[in-house]
């Protein structure tokens, strides 16, 4: 989550009416996007290298889970079989080739039935000896269901709260909202999670405490089951999103409610609903939408603790198990995907900013 409300103020320079349009804004946006995309390649390379070196430096060894009964020579052999004996730079280069050259080919093959990637070595997880990407793909559904949905729910709850608290600033609702959201923000999920489980699974028996990732939703009943098992993790996660977003929404609404154009809108005789929900909201959403967009990478990054508490086994759990098992290719790939998402959504946020705010100029 990135409170980047004002990040883009640079774009919102004073409108300059004297400056005639030299380009079509759409084309400018495109150039801007492409430029940023191209620039992000070296950034990402640098990031990946930094992460790789960090992981290299990190202590720990993929053999740590092998029982102590296995003698060291055997562990050494196992290490060699994983390619750990090679110098780090060679390992990095191999990883780069695999992720940027071979994996795309695999994807291509998958879609078009070609065989470019035949026999090429993909990024293989040390733990499972299977391609990292396959596992990641396997994890995406539950991550999206739970973390993604919780984000959506959080947003949907946060926005009305933020809007109303700002409209009735210092009212009881506003005060209570502040209080509750701050509490929500300050309670760690490893507390709320088990608490909910004790209440709703153990005492009341309403919801399962363990998430079933194999459930296929194909009927009303299975949908209900899915709903039941999703409800607790989604709520725990949504609490955090709500707490933060409603603060942003409130601040942004407050900024705009005092603007002159609001008075103009009222002077036209528009109803309060239209004034607030059309004129003010649209303007207030500009910074909030970018904040929302910047929070999206976190969805794909999963929610390590919550996933763990409810056994959702999404990306977050994958990352944490890989970390503790020192499964370098897996950790590397996941963090890299995460970095890509961060960079991408930074870009998307900037573009969204421009889409929503006609004043933005891309240069």
């Amino acid at each position, binding site marked *: 989550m990135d409170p980047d409300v004002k990040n883009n103020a640079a774009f919102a320079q004073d409108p300059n*009416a004297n400056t005639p349009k030299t380009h079509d804004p759409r084309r400018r946006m495109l150039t801007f996007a492409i430029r940023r995309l191209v620039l992000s390649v070296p950034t990402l390379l640098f990031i990946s290298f930094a992460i790789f070196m960090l992981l290299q430096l990190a202590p720990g060894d993929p053999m740590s889970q092998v029982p102590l009964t296995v003698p060291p020579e055997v562990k050494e052999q196992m290490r060699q079989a994983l390619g750990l004996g090679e110098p780090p730079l060679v390992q990095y280069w191999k990883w780069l080739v695999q992720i940027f050259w071979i994996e795309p080919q695999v994807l291509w093959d998958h879609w078009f039935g070609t065989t470019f990637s035949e026999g090429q070595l993909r990024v293989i997880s040390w733990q499972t000896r299977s391609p990292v990407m396959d596992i990641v793909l396997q994890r995406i559904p539950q991550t999206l269901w739970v973390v993604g949905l919780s984000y959506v729910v959080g947003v949907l709850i946060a926005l009305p709260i933020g809007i109303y608290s700002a409209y009735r600033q210092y009212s009881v609702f506003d005060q209570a909202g502040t209080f509750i959201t701050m509490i929500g923000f300050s309670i760690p999920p490893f507390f709320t999670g088990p608490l909910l489980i004790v209440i709703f699974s153990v005492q009341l028996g309403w919801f399962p405490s363990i998430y079933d990732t194999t459930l296929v939703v194909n009927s009303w009943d299975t949908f209900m089951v899915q709903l039941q098992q999703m409800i607790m993790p989604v709520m725990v996660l949504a609490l955090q999103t709500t707490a933060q977003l409603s603060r942003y929404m409130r601040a942004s609404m407050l900024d705009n409610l005092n603007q002159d154009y609001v008075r103009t809108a009222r*002077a036209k005789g528009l109803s309060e609903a239209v004034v607030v929900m059309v004129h003010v909201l649209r303007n207030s959403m500009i910074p909030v939408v970018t904040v929302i967009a910047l929070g999206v990478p976190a969805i794909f990054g999963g929610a390590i603790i919550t996933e763990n508490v409810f056994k959702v086994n999404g990306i977050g759990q994958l990352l944490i198990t890989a970390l503790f098992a020192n499964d370098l290719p897996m950790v590397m790939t996941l963090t890299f995907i995460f970095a890509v998402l961060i960079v991408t959504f930074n870009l998307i946020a900037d573009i969204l900013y421009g889409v929503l705010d006609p004043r933005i100029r891309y240069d």
Partner: protein
Amino acid sequence: MLDHAIARIQNLRVEFETKDGPVVGVEDVSFEIGPGETVCVVGESGSGKSVSSLSLMRLIEYGGGDIAGGRLLFDRREGGEIDLAQADQDLMRTIRGNEIGMIFQEPMTALNPVFTVGKQLTEGLRVHRGMTKHEAEARALELMQQVRIPEPERRLTQYPHELSGGMRQRVVIAMALACKPRLLIADEPTTALDVTIQAEILALIDRLKRETGTAVMFITHDMAVVAQMADRVVVMFRGKKVEEGTVEEIFENPQHPYTQALLAAVPKLGEMTGKALPEPMKLLGSDAQEPKPIPGSDEVLLRVRNLTTRFPVKGGFFRSTVANVHAVEDLSFDIQKGQTLSLVGESGCGKSTAGRSILRLIEPLSGSIELDRKDIMALNQRDLRTARLDMQMIFQDPFASLNPQMNLSDQVAEPMRNFDTLKGSDMDDRIAMLFDRVELPRSFLRRFPHELSGGQRQRVAIARALALNPKLIIADEAVSALDVSVQAQVVNLMMELQAELGLSFLFISHDMAVVERVSHKVGVMYLGRIVELGPRAAVFENPQHPYTQALMKAVPIADPRRRKSEKDLNFKPIPSPIHPVGYEPGPSVFDQVSPGHYVLTSDSGY
């Protein structure tokens, strides 16, 4: 007074709930507006003009105000008079925008930036007139034509920021007029605008009033505008009405001392006719001596030659320079010691850029600047910093040019701290002296900018500029944002300082009346170039360049008997100063019409 007044305000009292208890905004204000009549409400900032008008719209509640007493009688279209002060907000919604239209002070912020002009224009129509989208659009187009916006069809699909200030203000006017209101409230509709655009807007409102018979309540603090527009005038002072009368009565025979003082403070174009040298204004009540002319000397202090400043416009994939803003083109002038050169011209013509380029706050592209024979252009950053000891700048916006987080003595002390000119108690003494000099009480030393009025702030800015004993002060619209009365004081202060300390000023302004008052010489700028340069009397009394002539015509005169008619105005929109890379404009060629009076003969774009 009038038979069928459209609106009658009786004993209005508005209070604001603040943290320090209730504050009275206006008190016991009564006046009427008849059909087809323009009532001007004047008074300095904070006197309660806006509060009265917002109360009439019942919008004051949204700003934390409360109508504590009085009646706001409004004659509705379907006959019948109602008291708006008692009406509920639902009823008000049907009146607002429908029967009463309002034009707001700030064209830049009065429009919602994220909706197209068309959407904002049609909104009211669809609510009040129940029009379909299509009908409303047709009507919107009609309105746009009525307010004479060029290319009205295209404007409807544009966003507010894509329009110039003048166009935006016209859109706001069109919005206010959309439902053919019976009463139009215009709250300082032109304060933020250029002379030329102001003239156009005033003419527009006047014409609409004549054509539709709408009653107009016109709020302003600019007496020249009042003289142009008003049928009757209401003068407000500190939340109360102090005087009311027809425009002639007020101007020719003001009764209340405040009105008298106000009128005395208004610089009138043409007042200086026949005088060669500038002299301070005679303010009412200042028992001071007769204003003395300021001669200055003939020794050249600042010599600017062929100054050119361009801003690159970056674009394309590699963010290379694709075009340049030619903000200042081939500018040459001299300023003598103890004299004032004024630069005038429309917004965006490059005045500020010129001023900043001289200080090298913006790096000029080429040209030479010599201050006291020191070549400013050749200095490196460190020497430039010391060179700035001799030239200081006062900025346009007294609200923006002081750091809100620093107290006044620190702000004034800052230049001395930077250069270590004075220390400890010497510095304190000097700050106190400067405060005395600009007539600020010493008790203000520990205040923060927000605790001061605009005029006081501008005086702090002047004190700061004086702190280092500069030889040249560049005053970039130093008085434009101030109330007339305050403006007069600040202008007088600057001229006194000039007389006493022998300061030179580069005075940048678009207010011709003030310029006439202060300048020894005047340069008229257009599109980055000086189109006419000469002694003030020559330029004002004998303008040669067509642009200068047009500019002079647009200036409203604070005399109700010398109203301008719309026909006098012929302005073309300023062409773009942006040119592609490689475009090299020709040099400026001047013709000397009289000694020291030059007129541009090469193409200026006008």
